[in-house]
C-alpha cells in the first residue's frame, strides 16, 4: 500500500513538503544572525539587574529592526494546515469519485475501508511528521524573540504552531479535507469547503478559542496593575513590568473595592483615570485606599499541558472525521 500511495500522491506530497522546506530554508538562512544576537543577550545577562542596560536595549532593538519577516513566517505556518487539507486531503476520495476510478479500486481484493485507513495513515504520517519537525524548528527559531520579550510562546501566533499543535492542526485539516471529499464527491467543491472551514477554524482559534482554552482553571493572585489592567488581558507577563510569575500568561484582571466586591467596568475605569492614574506607585495608592487588584493567570509550567490539550482536541476531531469518512465510503458509490 505504501507503493500505491506513493505512485498516486507523490507529486502533491512533494509540493507540500516543498512548501515546508521553503519556509525551513528561510528560517535556517536567518537563524545564525538571530542566534548571534540571542547569544549576546544571554552573555550580557539581560534583562537582570546586573546587566549592561544599553547593550540589552541595543540587542532588543536590532532584533526588532531585523529584516526577518516574522509576520510572513507566522502566516505561512498557519496556512500550511489549510494547504494540506485542500490539496492533499480534499482530492483523496473526491478524485476517485470524479474520475470513476473508485469502481476499479474498491472492487479489488483490498476492502475499501482498509484501503482508506492505510492510505490516510501513510499520508498523515508523512505530513504530520514534517509539520511537527517544522513546528519544533519554529519554536526554536522564536526563542531569541521570546527572550527579549518581543514575543511569547503563549501568544496564539506561536501557540498554534509548535511541534505539537502544528502537527495536530495539519492532521485535523487533512481529515477535514478527506471528509469533505467523500461528502461532496467533487474535488473543487471539497477544496473550497475545506479551505473555508479549516481557515475559519484556525482564525477562530487564533482570535478567540485559544484565549478561552487558556482561561480554563486559571490561578488567581493579588498584584499590582501595569497600565489600567482590567478586563481580558490575554498577554504575556513581561519581566520587569508585570509582577505575575515570570513566563506566565495573564488571562484577566479586575479590581475589588474596600468591601471586597468586584468593581463594575465603569467603576474600574473611574478608578484608573481618577484614582491611581497619575500615581507612580499604583500599588501603594490602592493599598492606602483599600482597593485590590487581581489577575488570573496560567503559570509557565502549564504551557505544555495546554499544548497537549489543544493537540488532543484536534486529534480527536481528526479521528472523528476519519471515522465519518469511513462510514461514507462504506455506504456510497
Amino acid at each position, binding site marked *: 500500500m505504501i507503493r*500505491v500511495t506513493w505512485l498516486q500522491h507523490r507529486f502533491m506530497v512533494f509540493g507540500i513538503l516543498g512548501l515546508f522546506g521553503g519556509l525551513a530554508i528561510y528560517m535556517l538562512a536567518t537563524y545564525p544572525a538571530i542566534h548571534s544576537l540571542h547569544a549576546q543577550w544571554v552573555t550580557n545577562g539581560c534583562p537582570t539587574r546586573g546587566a549592561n542596560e544599553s547593550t540589552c536595549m541595543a540587542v532588543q532593538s536590532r532584533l526588532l529592526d531585523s529584516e526577518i519577516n516574522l509576520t510572513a513566517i507566522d502566516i505561512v505556518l498557519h496556512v500550511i494546515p489549510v494547504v494540506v487539507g485542500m490539496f492533499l486531503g480534499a482530492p483523496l476520495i473526491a478524485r476517485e469519485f470524479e474520475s470513476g476510478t473508485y*469502481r*476499479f*479500486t474498491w472492487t479489488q*481484493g483490498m476492502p475499501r475501508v482498509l484501503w482508506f485507513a492505510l492510505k490516510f495513515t501513510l499520508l498523515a504520517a508523512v505530513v504530520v511528521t514534517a509539520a511537527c519537525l517544522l513546528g519544533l524548528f519554529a519554536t526554536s527559531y522564536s526563542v531569541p524573540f521570546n527572550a527579549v520579550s518581543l514575543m511569547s510562546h503563549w501568544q496564539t501566533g506561536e501557540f498554534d504552531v509548535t511541534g505539537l499543535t502544528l502537527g495536530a492542526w495539519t492532521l485535523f485539516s487533512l481529515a477535514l479535507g478527506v471528509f469533505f471529499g467523500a461528502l461532496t464527491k467533487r474535488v473543487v467543491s471539497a477544496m473550497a469547503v475545506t479551505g473555508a472551514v479549516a481557515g475559519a477554524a484556525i482564525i477562530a482559534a487564533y482570535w478567540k478559542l485559544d484565549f478561552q482554552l487558556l482561561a480554563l482553571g486559571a490561578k488567581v493572585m493579588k498584584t499590582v496593575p501595569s497600565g489600567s489592567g482590567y478586563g481580558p488581558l490575554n498577554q504575556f507577563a513581561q519581566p520587569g513590568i508585570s509582577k505575575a510569575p515570570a513566563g506566565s500568561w495573564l488571562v484577566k484582571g479586575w479590581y475589588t473595592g474596600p468591601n471586597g466586591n468586584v468593581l463594575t467596568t465603569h467603576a474600574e475605569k473611574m478608578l484608573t483615570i481618577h484614582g491611581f492614574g497619575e500615581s507612580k506607585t499604583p500599588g501603594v495608592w490602592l493599598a492606602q485606599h483599600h482597593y485590590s487588584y487581581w489577575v488570573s493567570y496560567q503559570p509557565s509550567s502549564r504551557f505544555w499541558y495546554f499544548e497537549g490539550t489543544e493537540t488532543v482536541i484536534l486529534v480527536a476531531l481528526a479521528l472523528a472525521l476519519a471515522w465519518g469518512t469511513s462510514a461514507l465510503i462504506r455506504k456510497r*458509490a
Partner: protein
Amino acid sequence: MNAFDASDLGKRYGKRWALQGCSLSVPAGHVVAIVGPNGAGKTTLLHCLIGLVEASTGGAFVLDGLSAGSPDALDRVAFVAQDAPLYKYLSVAQMIEVTRNLNRNFDTTLARRRLDDLGIRLDQGVGKLSGGQQAQLALALALARHPELLVLDEPLARLDPLARYEFMGVLMAATAEEGLSVVFSSHVVSELERVADYLIVINSGRVQIASEIDELMNRHAFLTGPVEDLDRLSGTVDIVQTYRADRQARVLVRTRGATSIGENWESSSVSLEELVLAYLRDPHSSALRSSNDVVSHVRGVRS
C-alpha cells in the same frame, strides 16, 4: 455451485427504484449476458453483485453464498467497470503494480504476457492508450487476479467493431482456459448471442428473463394464424407479443411445455434479438420461473 444469487434484491436512489424485486439464481460456469435499455438497472444489478453499492432491500450473494462485497468475495470476483476507469496519469507498468498491491492473488507474469500479446507497451501512459487498449488493459488486470467470477459492465460500449471482436476473443479464450463464470451487460444483443449461453433481461428495474439461452429459445416461437383464433390460443400458450395485419396475426409465444396449438397456427423459430426486443417492448411481460422457487433456492444457499 451458483455464480451468483439475488434474493428480492432492490436498490433505491432517493424515491426512484433502480432495481426492484430481483430474485435470481445463476449456476456457475456460464457466460451470462445482461440486456436491457438505458436506465433499466443493469449497472445497478452488477454493482450490487460486486458490493459497490449497498442494496436497499434483499441481498446479493456470489459463488455459493458469499455476501457481495465481503473480503472473501472481493478476493474471488473481478470487475471491469464501464469505460474501464483506470488511473490515467500512471503508466501501464505502474497500473500493474497498483493492482498487484491491492490484491492477495495477482499474476504479474500473466498480465504482462497478455498485454505483450496485444502490443501494449508497459511504459505507455494509461491516458495515452486508445479506448480499446484501455479496455484490454482493464481486462488483463482483472484476469490476472485469476477470479472465479468475472463481472463486466458494458465492456463493448466504447469499442469499434474490430476492438469489440478482439476484446470478446480474449475474454472467451480466457473463459475457456480458466473455467470462470462471466457476467457482462450489453446493449448489443446481436453480439452477445455469439458468446453468451445465459441471458438476463432487465427492464424498468425488474427482471423479465433469466434463463439459459438454449432453454429460452426452445420455449419461444413465432406462431402465424387467424386473428379470430387468438383468444383460444391464449388459453394454451403465453403470448408475449402480437403483430396484427388484416385477418392474420403473428404472435410471439412462450410455450408451457408440450401443448397442442391447433392446426390453424404455423410455427417458426425466433431469433434471440427478436425475442429480447419483444420483451423489452413490454416491461410487464416476464419469462421467469416461479419466484417462490428462486427465493427458496437462494434461502437454501444462504443457510
